[in-house]
């Protein structure tokens, strides 16, 4: 199905199943421990061996020798595979650094060997016996701040240079020029990267893995092992979180496949938690200079955002300016994303890449600017709303209701009742503050395929290589098919994550929900056409599907009857057309936060958070809410505690486990409220839906930061807002 114009009224609009809060259909499997996650798939292949990697002890240099004799002689060891025994293996196009092979070390905890043994314990014990000698490259530079003004910085994306920023900024009566920093972050998903690999006698590779993008992993494995796609099968039905860390092939699948090839037996490999922060990807640190000029009534006339981040050579880092070309009005604009090559581990996508970091800065800047103007920060944002691309005014937003988010949020939160004097409200030992921020996240769509089977018993099966990374894909796909075929959700079986199924959008960039359901919609439309044909070539558009029956011209037939002679299948793919480039598609939210800061210690406790979200049709309000509150928790972590600490002498992340890298715990989260505007975006998909998986994370950290300022009167522009940054300036006790 080509999606070449905005959707009109269609069967998905009925809203009998879609749009209704629906508990996740895979919930019982998960709560009973029966959902098969990659590392525990003991039944998929017999005689599995366990692999345990050896990781580089240096950040940059060369391996001069790997002595594996002692490990090879250790009890239970079957094989030791050394990086130096082979050339650098191919990687996926999206990967920046290769995963294995050769003698070059490009980052700390790079995999340098794999010990394969009869048990996990034997492999791990023997891994400690592998001796690796290095020739370390000294004097490496790992501090982004030393590069701030170097001309070497390259561009991640084209600059946006509209009007004459310099002149407009110079003329503006009210201006802001501040620099904000965000730290490196790690995804910290619950399930580590894990794979089981097996080769068959014809040289075909099967990998049971944990990946967000099944087809990209197929492509990656083809590249690493010089295979054709039909020689590789990937199966990833359940994923314990990814947040971008499992978008592309990682060392677990490469090492498992190497181990399996060397031993002729299935091999499983999980990355140990302490190795994940440095072996895999992270969100890059950013240094962001923001300048805003406005006239006295608060209209922005000039805006500049200079966003610097780091990457391994060849990567894209974190483009913190991503939202700034589009979020607020202003005729004169200078947006300059910049990159520096650093030999930290590979910087890459983490949930809401770009916007998550960018809004941490921009939305503090907007708060500061409102204060300079003497304006309510809600009103300042409303005044500077835009319904078109500010740099290209003939390109409208497809559907933008940011102002409604702001107004509804302010009403619901009781924004008008807040104290407006920073540091002006105290309850006992606690300073109380309120803050808000806006949120913007692009609404990408990706082509997505699916196959639908109508079984002789009148129930349906959906097959697609779409993944459910904890987001609820199983359920919204079941809802989509149920809506289209007039079935109950319990009459639809959903099979995901297998590369034998049609290629889908996969999960990432909050494009998974709208794109994959559009693909299922397309397959269902095709199935409806086939049913129409079987009913005597009636007009498919005239069919009414309900309660397991289809009605055409007053005649009702059960789906079971239609499929009585054998299963009916229909496969299709949604292909999003170029018309989507003529509009801006995005999601929006307004966040409001109340918090308390301990006047003595500077400890911050968030008391309540509210998000009002605008993301088109919400397919399943229950799981969408889960996505948004999860994003808000992640943003709270970004605001208050999350930081990969860089050992700048050796070039690695030192706090590389979940004791050292702190994410929020239950005690950090009090009340969370999420409201979805009842909107539709016909330009986005046939279901008029957009994703929310990343929206909840966008902007929330700045809302926390702005509330912290309101509580303390101390403006912190360097995330996270840990207590050591305010301690000296807190009031006397």
């Amino acid at each position, binding site marked *: 199905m080509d999606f070449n114009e905005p959707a009109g009224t269609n069967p998905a609009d009925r809203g009998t199943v879609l749009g209704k809060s629906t508990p996740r259909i895979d919930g019982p499997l998960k709560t009973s421990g029966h959902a098969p996650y990659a590392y525990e798939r003991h039944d998929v292949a017999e005689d599995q061996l366990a692999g345990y990697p050896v990781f580089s002890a240096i950040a940059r240099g060369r391996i001069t020798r790997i002595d594996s004799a002692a490990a090879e002689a250790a009890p239970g060891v079957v094989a030791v595979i050394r990086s130096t025994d082979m050339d650098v293996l191919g990687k996926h196009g999206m990967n920046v650094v290769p995963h294995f092979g050769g003698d070059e070390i490009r980052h700390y905890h790079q995999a340098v060997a794999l010990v394969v043994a009869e048990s996990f314990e034997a492999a791990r014990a023997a891994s400690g016996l592998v001796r690796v000698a290095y020739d370390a490259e000294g004097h490496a530079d790992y501090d982004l701040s030393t590069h701030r003004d170097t001309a070497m910085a390259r561009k991640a994306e084209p600059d946006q240079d509209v009007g004459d920023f310099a002149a407009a900024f110079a003329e503006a009566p009210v201006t802001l020029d501040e620099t904000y920093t965000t730290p490196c972050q790690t995804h910290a998903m619950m399930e580590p990267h894990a794979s089981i690999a097996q080769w068959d006698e014809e040289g075909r590779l099967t990998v049971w893995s944990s990946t967000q993008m099944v087809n990209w992993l197929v492509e990656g494995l083809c590249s690493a092992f010089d295979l054709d796609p039909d020689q590789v099968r990937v199966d990833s039905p359940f994923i314990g979180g990814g947040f971008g860390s499992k978008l592309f092939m990682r060392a677990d699948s490469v090492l498992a496949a190497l181990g399996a090839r060397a031993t002729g037996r299935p091999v499983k490999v999980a990355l140990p938690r302490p190795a994940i922060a440095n072996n895999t990807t992270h969100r890059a640190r950013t240094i962001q200079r923001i300048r805003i000029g406005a006239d006295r009534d608060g209209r922005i006339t000039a805006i500049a955002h200079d966003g610097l981040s780091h990457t391994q050579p060849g990567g894209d880092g974190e483009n913190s300016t991503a939202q700034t070309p589009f979020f607020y009005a202003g005729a004169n604009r200078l947006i300059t994303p910049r990159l520096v090559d650093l030999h930290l581990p590979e910087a890459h996508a983490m949930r809401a890449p770009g916007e998550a970091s960018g809004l941490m800065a921009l939305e503090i800047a907007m708060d500061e600017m409102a204060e300079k103007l003497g304006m309510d920060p809600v009103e300042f944002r409303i005044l500077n709303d835009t319904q078109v691309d500010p740099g290209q005014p003939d390109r409208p937003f497809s559907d933008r209701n940011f102002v409604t988010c702001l107004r509804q949020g302010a009403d619901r939160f009781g924004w008008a009742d807040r104290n407006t004097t920073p540091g002006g409200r105290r309850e006992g030992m606690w300073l109380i503050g309120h803050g808000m921020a806006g949120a913007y996240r692009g609404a990408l769509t990706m082509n997505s395929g699916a196959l639908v089977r109508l079984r002789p018993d009148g129930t349906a099966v959906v097959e697609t290589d779409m993944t459910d990374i904890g987001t609820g894909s199983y359920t919204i796909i079941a809802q989509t098919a149920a809506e289209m075929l007039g079935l109950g959700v319990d009459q639809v079986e959903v099979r995901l994550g297998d590369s034998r199924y049609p290629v889908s959008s996969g999960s990432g960039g909050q494009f998974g929900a709208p794109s994959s359901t559009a693909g299922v919609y397309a397959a269902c439309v095709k199935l409806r056409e086939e049913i129409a044909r079987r009913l005597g070539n009636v007009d498919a558009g005239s069919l009414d599907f309900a309660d397991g029956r289809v009605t055409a011209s007053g005649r009702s037939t059960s789906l079971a009857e239609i499929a009585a002679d054998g299963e009916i299948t229909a496969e299709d793919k949604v292909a999003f057309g170029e018309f989507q480039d003529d509009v801006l598609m995005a999601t929006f939210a307004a966040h409001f936060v109340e918090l308390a800061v301990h006047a003595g210690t500077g400890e911050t406790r968030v008391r309540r958070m509210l998000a009002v979200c605008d993301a088109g049709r919400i397919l399943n309000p229950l799981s969408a809410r889960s996505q948004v509150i999860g994003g808000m928790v992640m943003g709270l972590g970004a605001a208050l505690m999350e930081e990969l600490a860089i*050992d700048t002498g050796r070039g690695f992340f*030192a706090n590389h486990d979940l004791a*050292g890298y702190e994410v*929020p*715990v239950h*005690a950090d989260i009090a009340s969370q409220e999420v409201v979805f505007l009842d909107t539709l975006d016909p330009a986005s998909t046939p279901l008029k839906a957009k994703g929310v998986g990343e929206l909840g994370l966008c902007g929330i950290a700045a809302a926390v930061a702005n509330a912290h300022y309101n509580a303390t009167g101390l403006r912190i522009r360097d995330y996270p807002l840990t207590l050591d940054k305010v301690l000296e300036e807190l009031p006397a006790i």
Partner: protein
Amino acid sequence: MREFSFERAGDAGQAATLAAGDTGAKFIAGGTNLLDLMKLEIETPSRLIDVTGTGLDRIEQTDAGGLRIGAMVRNTDLAADDRIRRDYGVLTRALVAGASGQLRNMATSGGNLLQRTRCPYFYDTNMACNKRSPGAGCAALDSGGFTRPLGVIGISDHCIATHPSDMAVAMRLLDAQVETLDAAGNSRSIPLEEFYLLPGDTPERETVLEPGEIITAVTLPAPIGGHQAYHKVRDRASYAFALVSVALVRQADGSGRVALGGVAPQPWRRAAADAELPNGAGAVMARLLDGARPTAQNAFKITLAERTLAAMLAEAEGN
């Protein structure tokens, strides 16, 4: 994890006998720290002696009017004990500020005292650490090292790790004594003040315990009353080690005691600092943290300790 043998001891004497003369032997109780360290090969015992069956799981009154806490009393049970809650409130508060409910269900009084530092360089076996490998050096102290969570006082040029226990800070405040038994049947009672060693140039030696010597109990003197409080400051609300923690007993006349966690290789308390309590937090910390040698990353702990105590004193006066 390396291979090891596993034996169960029926009483403390048997445990000490089993361990005697075997440098590869380790006692294991809750295992909340030792098992983690074994998985990472930071601890590589050849022999584990399970001491959970030694019957040391009771809390009893002492003749001196205090309490004798068996070494195997679980942290959860200790925190919930009526006598502890009534007479030694600071200990309950410190215990529940530590770890998680699940860990406290496993962790024991004796094991808690002997947990190892959480210094990230101690945990990363690629990195030089004098605690793990005497003489190897201290990666934390190298240029560019990450020292924010580490110690500011009592440290040395060889090690700036902290002791992570909350329980031990409250016990130190309460003048607890550690009772031990060795294979020869000798028992001794060690004031907690003398139990931990400062790192000096032998940071691998953390306590005065001799090889094979087993902790049988911790005794608390008779209750001292007063306002008892424990404030643990960290970057999130729960389940994190202290940046700084302050244990306080304050009597109605303004006198009292102060001990700190998160700043030193041992629970940190000085009599001269206690004596300054009537003069306020600044006076206490001037004595308690005299000689501190913080890094640029953790110098805030000095200010934080003083401000935390000041807030606790303000709250105590408000009560």
